[in-house]
């Protein structure tokens, strides 16, 4: 990927308050067997 000449490079530091990553997928619980009353 040609993003430009190295001599145009400058450094940026990004420290997000919250990382832009979605929460982990919820764990799907197995269906429970109906319990007789």
């Amino acid at each position: 990927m040609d993003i430009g000449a190295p001599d145009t490079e400058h450094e940026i530091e990004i420290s997000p308050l919250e990382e832009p990553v979605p929460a982990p997928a919820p764990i799907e619980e197995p269906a429970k067997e109906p319990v007789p009353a």
Partner: protein
Amino acid sequence: MNPEQHTDPIVGWRLWHVRPHGDAHRLESFTWHHVSWPARRRFTAECPTHGDSAPTEGHECGIYAFKTRELAEDLLRRYTGVRQHYGRPGQELPPLRQGCPLAIGRVSLWGRILARENGFRAQHAYPYDLFLIGGDDELARQLRRLYAIDVWLS
């Protein structure tokens, strides 16, 4: 010189391959074969020379992204011959081979970033949203669920 400091992630544009991994498709690096992007976890640059210090000055390591959609589309045309502008009506559809889907989309970048005139080399990244090329509704649904991002069929 001290780097610029920000709290908002940079949003760039890039391409991915979409390849099967076990029973699910995943995003893969466009230029590095079989480097898979994790779902719901940040993707962090690693370098054989600099380890987790990537990206470093004077090297080419890091996670790459362009500054604009047009630059990502130019790369897509050069690699695949696909002539398409995403999100604009009336454009031709891509003649991709079946079973070799691609994605073009936005990516969040953060951590240490080295910015050049046309793009970035970043330490951390996660897909922001993407257009799926050469896939179908089921694949779009799978990627949407896996990465928890918006995925459109182009």
